[in-house]
């Protein structure tokens, strides 16, 4: 499929089946992601989006099919240093303190690299700075807000300069300015040639970046092609959202109590 001249596909999954707890979560999913592409995985809750990215990264076992990352099968020899994964949320705290710097430093390990390389601390601090948390490097992650924890997870994925970034609902629970900063970061990475696979519930701030959308339904690919055509004017910041029909009951806009004094 891949000749010597063209670069291998960033992700190539064929006939992927995943069965968890006796239930078939994914059935015959084929997915090929070209290098440099930004792909959105869409679908309802429980449609198998998270399971698909976990299967692509070897987190959950597959019962059939194969996955190749940059042309290499999953396993110890896969190019793990080129892959950055941002899970949906940080695991529940065990009570053991861990600083943001320590969590991001753990992102420097991959495959057979079990000790951080020289200059790891500098790279981890740079990654924290890129998500705007440089001043919190030595804070416990358990004391951070959900959005800040999410940014630590993003820094942990970015610290190894990945060529493939896999994001599981990266902007859920994040305030709008931070979302914008994050989309800026992703678009900068995309411009530099990074492949991005992102799970989303709504295109939202990513709308301008997405080149292709894969919609999952009941563990199968229901749509694969251009992103669902959102009315572009609706996505604009200055769009004044009005309804064609009148509001059922206009919301109160100010003091409406009138007092009549009768002699």
């Amino acid at each position, binding site marked *: 499929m891949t000749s010597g001249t063209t670069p291998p596909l960033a992700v190539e999954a064929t006939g992927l089946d995943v069965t968890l707890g006796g239930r078939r979560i994914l059935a015959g999913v084929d997915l090929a992601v070209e290098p440099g592409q930004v792909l959105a995985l869409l679908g309802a809750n429980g449609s198998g989006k998270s399971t698909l990215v976990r299967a692509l990264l*070897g*987190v959950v076992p597959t019962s059939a099919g194969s996955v190749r990352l940059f042309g290499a099968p999953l396993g110890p020899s896969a190019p793990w240093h080129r892959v950055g994964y941002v899970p949906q949320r940080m695991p529940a705290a065990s009570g053991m303190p861990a600083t943001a710097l320590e969590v991001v430093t753990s992102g420097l390990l991959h495959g057979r690299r079990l000790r951080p390389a020289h200059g790891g601390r500098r790279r981890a601090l740079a990654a924290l700075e890129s998500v705007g948390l440089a001043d919190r490097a030595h804070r416990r992650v358990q004391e951070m807000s959900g959005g800040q924890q999410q940014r630590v997870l993003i820094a942990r994925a970015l610290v190894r300069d990945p060529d493939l970034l896999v994001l599981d609902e990266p902007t859920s629970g994040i*305030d709008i300015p931070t979302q914008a900063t994050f989309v800026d970061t992703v678009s900068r990475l995309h411009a530099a040639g990074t492949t991005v696979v992102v799970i989303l519930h709504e295109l939202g701030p990513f709308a301008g970046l997405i080149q292709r959308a894969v919609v999952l339904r009941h563990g199968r690919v229901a749509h694969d092609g251009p992103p669902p055509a959102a009315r572009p004017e609706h996505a604009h910041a200055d769009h*004044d959202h009005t309804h064609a029909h009148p509001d059922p009951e206009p919301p109160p806009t100010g003091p409406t109590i009138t007092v009549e004094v009768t002699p």
Partner: protein
Amino acid sequence: MTWDLVVEMLTSPLMQRALLAAVLVGAAAPVVGTFLVQRRMALMGDGIGHVALTGVALGWLVGSWVGLVPQDALAVPGAVVAAVVGSVVIELVRERGRTSGDLALALMFYGGIAGGVLLIKVAGGTNANLISYLFGSISTVSTTDLWWTVALAALVLGVGLGLRTALFAVSHDEEFARASGLPVRLLSMLVATIAALTVTIAMRVVGLLLVSALMIVPVAIAQLYARSFGRTMTLASVIGVVVSVVGLGLTYWQDIPPGATIVVLAIVVYTVAAALRPALQRHRPDDDPHPDMVDDVLIVDDVCDDPVTTVATPARGTVAPNPPPAATPAGGATAATSPLGTDDPAGGSRAT
């Protein structure tokens, strides 16, 4: 007077061996305990200790069959084998995550203790022998025991400190470690194995029934004050050495059991540390806990009362400076204004 006693204690070869063992075990046990607490397996050491007793007894049994002169020559190797096998089984049960795992562990623990007590009697051991393994007998540490302790403690510290980042990664977020291609299973087994080795070296100092305390209580003390994983580990190790040496020193003057003294001392330290924590925690009055919060909700009443506010004016009437398309409700009224505007007929400004 006191100084003479200290010198006398330090020149006794028996006490020298005991102190060296206490320092090594006190330093190594909390290093392993840090990973166990992070993996929520604080009681794993306890379980391994139970299983190790059967290993000790099997060592006795083999020793008496072969006719070795010190009958317990194979006790420590037996404990090492049983503890490693037991810890790997516990880790496999944990990995499966089945509900029956709980019962499987219980069966293993009680089977380990009962089998050990039974076999040690069959092998010709006495109740005194049994007690010395269950509750420690640091005063009977032989030179051979000491070499075992030195070698295993070096191995435990080497693995625990050398692979600290990798073991942290696996213990902190197993899913991410898998998605990074790390050998998660191997690293989990490694934690289980060094826990098993720690149990066997701590057996002489605090005894199999109290091993877990020396692994966990110093970590519990350290995490009250430390802010990072690395500092917790270092502090726990220092606390482990201090309580072990002080506890052992006390038994030189008083006729009290060393293992129990060390553990009680550690728990006293924990109680004091926990009680003093509110007073000792550094208070940072000018440290705003949310300095990077964006004031993205404007209260319209405030804006009206103070129209010269330069920052607020351009964004008046919107929910956020950079609103998403869906966040502007129909009619342009913000969600924040409606409850505030209606219940105040006087029109006065509200303090927010």
